[in-house]
């Protein structure tokens, strides 16, 4: 199975004018891109702003994407450049310096200002999702847990997981799907309650 097939399918749709396909790409990679950007800025809200800018840049540059490299490699490059530029422009900005002087009592993290959107509620929701997923994984049968962890944590292909677990590739696909479904059932409950709260957070 050639790598990046699913991303390329979505990319080709975007290139043909299907903006909905770009949503799927953003949903798939938003966490990874934010995590990548957070190497440059520690504040999650600022990292999300930079990630948003990176995604929009990627969308505008998609006509030039030919598929020579994997989509995520290309996207990560854009995200890193965007983050570097953001850090440089922020460091050169006199506004931040002025704010520091004008608000000496305001608390800052190492890389910048704490944004209003970084609220305790948002952090609580993240913790709730994390604990739900982890408890769901702990409740999985051993073979399903091993398969999903090898895939998500180690990034192994189905074939590599099949070798590691001594089973056919079709079985790996089935195990990963069943593991996701089991976790998803628990996660949906959080999302149905959590999404309402998230909207309230604005």
């Amino acid at each position: 199975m050639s790598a990046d097939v699913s991303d390329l399918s979505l990319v080709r749709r975007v290139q043909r004018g299907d903006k909905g396909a770009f949503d799927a790409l953003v949903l798939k990679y938003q966490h990874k891109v934010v995590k990548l950007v957070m190497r440059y800025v520690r504040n999650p809200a600022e990292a999300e702003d930079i990630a948003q800018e990176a995604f929009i840049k990627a969308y505008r540059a998609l006509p030039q994407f030919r598929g020579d490299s994997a989509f995520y490699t290309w996207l990560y490059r854009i995200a890193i450049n965007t983050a570097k530029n953001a850090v440089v422009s922020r460091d050169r900005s006199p506004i931040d310096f002025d704010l520091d002087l004008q608000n000496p009592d305001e608390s800052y993290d190492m890389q910048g200002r704490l944004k209003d959107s970084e609220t305790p509620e948002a952090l609580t929701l993240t913790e709730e999702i994390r604990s739900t997923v982890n408890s769901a994984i702990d409740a999985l049968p051993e073979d399903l847990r091993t398969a999903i962890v090898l895939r998500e944590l180690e990034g192994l292909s189905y074939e590599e997981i099949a070798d590691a677990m001594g089973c056919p590739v079709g079985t790996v696909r089935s195990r990963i799907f069943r593991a996701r479904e089991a976790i998803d059932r628990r996660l949906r409950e959080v999302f149905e309650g959590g999404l309402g709260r998230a909207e309230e957070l604005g």
Partner: protein
Amino acid sequence: MNEELDSQLSAMFDDELPEDQCQLLARRLSRDDALKARWRRYAVIGAAIRAERQGGAVGRLETNLASRVSAAVSAEPALAGEVVAQNAVRKAGGMRWWQPVAGGAIAASVAAMSVLWIRAQAPVGADTLVAENAAAPAALTQTVAQRMGDDSASESYVVPATVERTPIVPSAELANYVVAHSEFSAPVNRRNMLSALVASEPLAEVDAASSEPNGAAPATNVVEVSRPNVEEASK
């Protein structure tokens, strides 16, 4: 939502779905909100597992980043026209630069092949043969003069003894053919490699011989070897 579709979505999320199925599912994914929500939760599951096991900064697992990007992209023009236009420009630009290069490369290849072919076809010892033949014009002239002056005289097709025939001398049939045709061809055509091989005498002499009033065939040593057929044809 059927289980098979969800199973395919899971495989597609891992880049493990065959391409043809990917294309169909990508189309559905871009339009089906329920499928997109499931896709989103798959991403959250992966992020949560990595956050727990790997630690470090992960950001928020629940975020409105995707909806913000989607709103911003909605305000952007669709890409279809741009992609087509840029591909056309790329194609046209490509045509412009590689056409002369390709033309030059083809010309160079043909020239190189021609040189190699000619060198490969050149008879071994041809220089020696020509040098030896250079001493023969006197004998040849005499032979031709005898033939012109006395048709009843028995024709002599004797090759001067000083000329040693080597295995590379073309066959009589080939020589006969070339000589017969050379009478009706322009002098420049006889300068091709095969004529030079057969009629191994200086071109000036060949031209002079071919312009003789009686239309006699060029008097060359090699021609003399297979002369009978030519003579019959010209009579």
